[in-house]
């Protein structure tokens, strides 16, 4: 699978001028709101016609302004999961799911229907009307509806943005299964570092309509916040881990990363599954002695590798904990009080709750 996208488009005074490629898997289009992510996805879907540009999927030219090629939306077979579920209000869940199957031809078998319904956990909703579903249920049905149209490519425009934290935690595991169990390449739009870290293989960072950085998710997300065009508030570090165990009683997932065990809220994944975590620097505390009688579950021992220059009264301290780099943002006052400097051993403290999505 190879997707190539190239687009230049003016909307009022805003200009999109972006190009990126994907070799399959999940490609995240990442950037703050107003960076042109949704417009770019609409251009890929064909809902928006770019002034100039090219879209090629596996050598099949979908659109090419130079040659006057423009396949209409309904012939592209690109599934699209929107921010709002956009289920058809006059059809039951079952008929919503079957809608695209009919246009895709009879290639989809009944077992495919059952498999996708099972994967998304929507079997008990089939005879309901969309208006009676919760936000999370609607979004799962919308994902199923897009998948059952047997798309060649799946576009997802912030499918979690309209949901509250609990609903996000409910849907993320389904999206991870989708990524791991289907071979459909996905373009995933998000402005949340945590979501991108958890789901994507590759990231394309958009800023003001232009590609600012692109590449492997761990490589791109460990760059400083300024490069990522994200809020300094969101700066942090990416940890690659494997699920070691589940604490069913307390609804916690234990993730091993290097020699550390990190406890994450909710039963998000099965043991053995890979899980990427994003730990925001502002959620990490540092202590020079091992704290006792503390509610935070993750206390990781490590050594300070370096400190950033002071910015707005705070510094970012990078700590090597058992092979993982964790970034902690602390005030300069704390740094002086604790005498923090490179080489000093410290304990990084992360509340489990802070790792919620």
């Amino acid at each position, binding site marked *: 699978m190879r997707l190539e996208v190239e687009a230049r488009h003016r909307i009022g005074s805003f200009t999109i001028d972006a190009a990126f490629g994907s070799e399959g898997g999940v490609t995240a289009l990442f950037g703050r709101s107003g960076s042109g992510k949704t417009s770019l996805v609409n251009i890929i*879907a064909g*809902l928006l016609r770019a002034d100039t540009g090219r879209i090629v999927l596996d050598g099949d030219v979908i659109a090419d302004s130079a040659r006057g090629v423009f396949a*209409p*939306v*309904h*012939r*592209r*077979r*690109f*599934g*699209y999961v*929107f921010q*709002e*579920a*956009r*289920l*058809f*209000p*006059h059809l039951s869940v079952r008929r919503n799911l079957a*809608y*695209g199957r009919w*246009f*895709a031809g009879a290639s989809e078998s009944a077992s495919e229907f059952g498999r996708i319904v099972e994967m998304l956990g929507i079997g008990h909703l089939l005879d309901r*009307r*969309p*208006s009676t*579903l919760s936000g999370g249920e*609607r979004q799962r049905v919308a994902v199923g*509806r*897009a998948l059952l*149209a047997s798309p060649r490519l799946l*576009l997802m425009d912030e499918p979690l943005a309209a949901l509250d934290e609990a609903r996000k935690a409910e849907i993320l595991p389904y999206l991870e299964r989708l990524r791991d169990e289907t071979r459909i390449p996905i373009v995933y739009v998000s402005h949340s570092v945590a979501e991108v870290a958890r789901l994507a293989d590759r990231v394309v960072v958009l800023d003001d309509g232009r590609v600012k950085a692109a590449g492997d998710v761990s490589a791109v997300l460990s760059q400083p916040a300024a490069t990522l065009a994200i809020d300094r508030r969101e700066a942090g570090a990416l940890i690659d881990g494997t699920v070691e165990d589940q604490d069913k009683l307390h609804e916690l997932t234990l993730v091993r990363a290097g020699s550390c065990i990190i406890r994450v809220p909710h039963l998000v994944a099965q043991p053995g599954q890979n899980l990427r975590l994003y730990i925001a620097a502002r959620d990490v505390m540092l202590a020079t002695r091992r704290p006792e009688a503390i509610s935070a579950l993750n206390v990781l021992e490590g050594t300070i590798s370096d400190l950033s220059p002071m910015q707005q009264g705070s510094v970012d301290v990078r700590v090597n904990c058992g092979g993982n780099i964790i970034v902690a943002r602390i005030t300069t006052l704390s740094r002086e009080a604790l005498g923090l400097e490179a080489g000093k051993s410290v304990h990084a403290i992360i509340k489990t709750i802070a790792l919620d999505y």
Partner: protein
Amino acid sequence: MSLSDAEWTAVRLSLRVATVAMLSSLPVALLVAIALARGRFWGKSALNGLVHMPLILPPVVTGFVLLLLFGRRGPIGAFLAEHLGLVFSFRWTGAALACAVMGFPLMVRSIRLSIETVDRKLEHAAATLGASPGWVFLTVTLPLILPGIVAGMILSFAKAMGEFGATITFVSNIPGETQTISAAIYTFTQVPGGDAGAMRLTIISIIVSMAALMLSEVLAAAAARRTVAA
């Protein structure tokens, strides 16, 4: 309360005229409503004005214009009579035409409003699922505006049941051919001792109109509920 034969004839004629007027104006009203709701073309406001004319003009004027255009010697009337054998003047078909024209703005307004409340995002979603524009209209837009269409049809029917001025100007008041309920009531009031007949037809007229309006309200509410995007 029992009706005389002449009164029954008037009731039956009114129902037939109203039904034909409603059904024959539906396809045109649907196309015009789509054009006004979705189209961007030169002369859109002129079309909108033309459609609403019968609502504002005195019905007598509308009837007289119809007589000029669709009468035996009118440009359209002569053409239709010669090529299709379709005669309007002093026939019940003329009454149906007058009623269709008078009810047309009501039907267009109702359908247009329901099209404007359809969330276009749903149509885009259908397109990404592989539906061509024609299929999107049939499987998404049409089901969502159906209550609006039905409400428009009922309004047009009710208007036709009550039409008087344009009809009597265009096709006169011929018992058994163009004498609808309204015309019959008018005739009753013009003769001594006609009050009882006028009263009977008045009650029937009130019942039919009231039922149509209430049904229209129910359907309009259903339309509003169904077109809310989920």
